[in-house]
């Protein structure tokens, strides 16, 4: 009897393993049925994700809030002082105001670059189990979004659209370790490749051995053929550390992203790029420093 049970288990195991391999083969051969199932699930899930996004938007920052508890406590004390001043004013939903501000800024950036964009809200983040840094946005093929389109935020590059359903899209974030983008140092012709490292810092490998990198250099996307996946001129990041190594053929540098990918809630998908390259026009201009003149009060002398 035990042997019969064991044989049955073995047969079941073989059957399931073969089924799994069959499904993988179908998917790798590009059978539409498999991608259709995923798209179907995405279409069903995205309204639920939208609902959860509205209900639990503060939950996402729970862990980071706990980490920054001490700092938050100090901020709470300061904010408590301000509450009295704000009592008589109409307080709008902070989240909504933030999103509106991000939307205005992202449309402003797109307008300056001459990009035709579709604005979108971030409705979910990719699970850690997928081993990819992704976000889900609430626009899809119905809004004209297709695969390999550039996604920007109010400050600059966010990532690239990797898959699209009718009403949602998956965006591969630039922080993903597999992400690479061709960049140019603003104000120069030096070009390089920027790679994600999984966190908030990035690695720049300058292709021109004679080129010079300085701390504070701003980087913009070089753009791809037919503007897919990258449109030119989008701000990408700022050089924070230059790795000087005389034995290396290329020069490397650490770069900080211009966009805080952990905090983005509103983005825009570039549907069509500008006719010309906007060059460095999208780099944020440094704020002019204000000079304050102080005239010392004459101190009375003992004789006065």
């Amino acid at each position, binding site marked *: 009897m035990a042997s019969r049970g064991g044989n*049955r288990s073995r047969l079941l195991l073989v059957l399931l*393993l073969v089924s*799994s391999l069959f499904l993988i083969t179908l998917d790798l051969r590009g059978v539409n049925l498999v991608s259709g199932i995923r798209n179907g*699930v995405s279409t069903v899930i995205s309204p639920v994700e939208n609902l959860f996004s509205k209900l639990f938007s503060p939950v*996402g920052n729970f*862990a980071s809030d706990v980490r920054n508890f001490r700092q938050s406590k100090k901020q709470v004390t300061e904010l408590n002082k301000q509450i009295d001043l704000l009592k008589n004013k109409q307080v709008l939903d902070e989240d909504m105001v933030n999103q509106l501000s991000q939307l205005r800024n992202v449309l402003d950036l797109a307008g300056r670059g001459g990009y035709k964009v579709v604005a979108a809200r971030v409705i979910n983040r990719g699970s850690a189990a997928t081993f990819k840094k992704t976000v889900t946005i609430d626009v899809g093929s119905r809004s004209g979004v297709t695969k390999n389109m550039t996604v920007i935020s109010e400050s600059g590059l966010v990532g690239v659209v990797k898959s699209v359903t009718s009403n949602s899209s998956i965006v591969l974030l630039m922080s993903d370790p597999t992400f690479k983008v061709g960049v140019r140092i603003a104000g120069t012709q030096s070009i390089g490749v920027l790679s994600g490292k999984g966190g908030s810092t990035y690695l720049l490998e300058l292709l021109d051995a004679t080129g010079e990198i300085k701390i504070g250099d701003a980087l913009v996307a070089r753009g791809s053929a037919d503007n897919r996946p990258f449109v030119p001129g989008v701000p990408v990041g700022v050089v924070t550390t230059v790795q000087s190594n005389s034995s290396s053929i290329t020069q490397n540098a650490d770069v900080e992203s211009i966009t805080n990918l952990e905090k983005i809630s509103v983005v825009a998908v570039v549907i069509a790029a500008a006719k010309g390259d906007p060059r460095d026009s999208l780099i944020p201009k440094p704020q002019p420093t204000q000079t304050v003149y102080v005239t010392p009060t004459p101190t009375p002398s003992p004789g006065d």
Partner: protein
Amino acid sequence: MSRIRVLNTSLFLLFIFLIQTSLIARINFPIGGFSIYIAILMVVLSLEDRNGSLVFGFIGGLIMDLAPSAQTPFGQWALAMTVIGYIFSVNRETVGDFNDRPLALTSLVSVAASVSMLIFIVIGALLGQNNGGLLHSLSIIFSNLLWTFLITPIFIPLILKVRKILLTNRERV
């Protein structure tokens, strides 16, 4: 194992999957992340008989393959989870009953969740996928191990109760 229980448990796993993709995934856990779905699937597998471990491993993996954010071939998680189901089924008699040993169950679930992710990575590597380097993947697996170990004890009693409800009358006896 009756068909009705296969259906019930699959729907339960689908519900957990929905919670994972819609709610848990949006929490920024430090280091890497946490998958409540994998943890609950491991609890289910650890409580099943030999055939149950295999079947629910496969079904659980198929549900994971449905994740819209997954950029991996459909069936990769099913294969990984079937292997994990097999490991559970082979060692079912060795590990024994967990009802009186919650810490042992938590440890097993945490390790099994990490092993399942490791198998997934290995299968991915065999299929030529680039998941951003071994260190990056290992940090995600380690983070998941840590969070699973810390969070699983909170919901284990609930899962045990739900499983009792999902059993048919004959299976309860």
